[in-house]
């Protein structure tokens, strides 16, 4: 099917990756990219960091420069939003127009959850997903401005670090016991908390938000414990939901998104999905690496090339001068084995390494990923002298067993 007309819906990293890989693999058919944003696809992670601080401009975030799409012979339909799908006639609806396709890639990503709080409509209540969101935040949050972040997940923590660094007065609020408690677990959460506390961010954990108040513009945030926080800006970052309402009921769903197999095939012939909204074997992943690997697999499936090797899921978060990496899926109740020196931690369940996390230690992270799913001696995992590469290759004997 190298001459098929491929229509990619969604101008994010997943969609852009599918396009790049299709052309890499020799796909000769026409390719159309439909994106609701007026920008060529860009990487979102820096919106909460380098772009927000002003260190990086949008050009540095783009997956490809605009000219790259001309070189790849891709028709761009940016600033246009898909509104429906007729899978039987193989047509994508864009408002009153419809576009025919041979292969459709659904990669519309996700949108931010808007909690039902009184006052969400007030001016100064922001979210972060797009370049425009980041611009609005950049404009309002500067040195001395009072910023309340609702939600201490990745967005809340990274924005807190960036804005604190530029001199804003920052408060992080979350109902969980600590920042990034859900995705990282207690041990890493405690380290993240320490960075923020040392930097002067106020952490209010274990409390919820009741109401945002102000006269047209937000002025105070009322918490469940009665605390009233003064705020010039409120950023709400309490999770995302797949952007699939436009699809209707055509495609089978899973985990709140579109159900796909490992190659990104949906329940409908000729329709694939990749990125935030794709539930691979029932599991959705909202990270860069998932967009890259799923995009590559979809492209391979479309042209009939062998699928790229499966990789464990992983992600990173950057706050202040620190980089956290986490791979695999930790769960409450895992045994946590910490490796001293450059920080690395392993999450063990029934003796099996289920997840690995490192801080400022990408090398051990990469090596640790190869230990996932294996049974390894906790005393060796925790021993900074034991080479993780040899451990992965099964070449390290536990001390005492050497003859």
């Amino acid at each position, binding site marked *: 099917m190298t001459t098929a007309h491929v229509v990619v819906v969604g101008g994010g990293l997943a969609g852009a990756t599918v396009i790049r890989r299709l052309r890499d693999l020799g796909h000769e058919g026409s390719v159309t990219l439909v994106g609701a944003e007026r920008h060529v696809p860009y*990487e979102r992670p*820096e919106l909460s960091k*380098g772009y927000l601080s002003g260190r990086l401009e949008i050009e540095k975030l783009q*997956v*490809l420069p605009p000219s*790259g799409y001309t070189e790849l012979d891709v028709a761009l339909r940016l600033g246009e939003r898909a509104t429906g799908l007729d899978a039987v006639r193989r047509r994508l609806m864009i408002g009153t127009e419809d576009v025919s396709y041979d292969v459709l890639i659904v990669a519309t990503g996700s949108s931010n959850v808007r909690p039902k709080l009184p006052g969400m409509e007030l001016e100064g209540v922001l979210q972060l997903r797009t370049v425009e969101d980041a611009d609005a935040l950049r404009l309002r949050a500067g040195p001395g401005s009072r910023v309340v972040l609702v939600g201490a997940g990745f967005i809340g923590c990274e924005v807190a670090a960036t804005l604190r660094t530029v001199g804003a007065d920052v408060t992080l609020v979350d109902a969980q016991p600590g920042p990034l408690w859900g995705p990282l677990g207690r041990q890493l959460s405690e380290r993240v908390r320490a960075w923020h506390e040392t930097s002067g961010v106020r952490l209010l954990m274990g409390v919820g938000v009741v109401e945002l108040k102000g006269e047209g513009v937000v002025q105070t945030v009322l918490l469940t414990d009665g605390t009233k926080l003064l705020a010039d800006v409120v950023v709400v970052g309490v999770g995302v939901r797949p952007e699939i309402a436009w699809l209707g009921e055509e495609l089978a769903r899973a985990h709140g998104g579109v159900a796909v197999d490992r190659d990104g095939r949906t329940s409908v012939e000729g329709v694939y999905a990749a990125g935030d909204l794709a539930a691979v074997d029932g599991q959705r992943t909202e990270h*860069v*690496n998932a967009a*890259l690997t799923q995009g*590559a697999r979809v492209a391979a499936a479309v042209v009939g090339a062998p699928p*790229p090797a499966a990789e464990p899921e992983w992600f*990173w978060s950057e706050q202040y001068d620190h*980089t956290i990496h986490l791979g695999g899926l930790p769960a409450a109740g895992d045994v946590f084995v910490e490796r001293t020196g450059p920080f690395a931690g392993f999450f063990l369940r029934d003796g099996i390494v289920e997840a690995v996390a490192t801080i400022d*230690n*990408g*090398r051990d*992270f*990469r*090596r640790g990923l190869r230990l996932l799913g294996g049974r390894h001696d906790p005393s060796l995992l925790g021993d900074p002298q034991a080479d993780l590469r040899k451990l992965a290759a099964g070449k390290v004997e536990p001390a005492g067993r050497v003859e």
Partner: protein
Amino acid sequence: MCTECGCQASSTATQGTVTDFVSPAEGELTSVSVEGVAVAVATVGGELFAVDDTCTHQGCSLSDGEVEGTAVVCPCHFGRFDLRTGKVLDGPPEVPVGVWKTRLQDGTLELER
């Protein structure tokens, strides 16, 4: 930026030497500086390979990363570059990394691109 392939190497040749150079162990990396440019040097199969020590994605130091076969993997977001050609093999980077020719003689490393 190089006009031929879009890599970050300048179009004019740059060369320099590093005296008292100690080769990294097999499969390891080290960083040197030539004419103010940080260069990552790796030993693979007993041979020295050198690329710019700055990832073309977000600027992390490749010498803090890892050698995998004949590739170097950035420690930040795991872009993978071919040490021989500078080509992006996978991961988020889009632009190839600049490659340097290496020659080691009597403890002096000569680098040229």
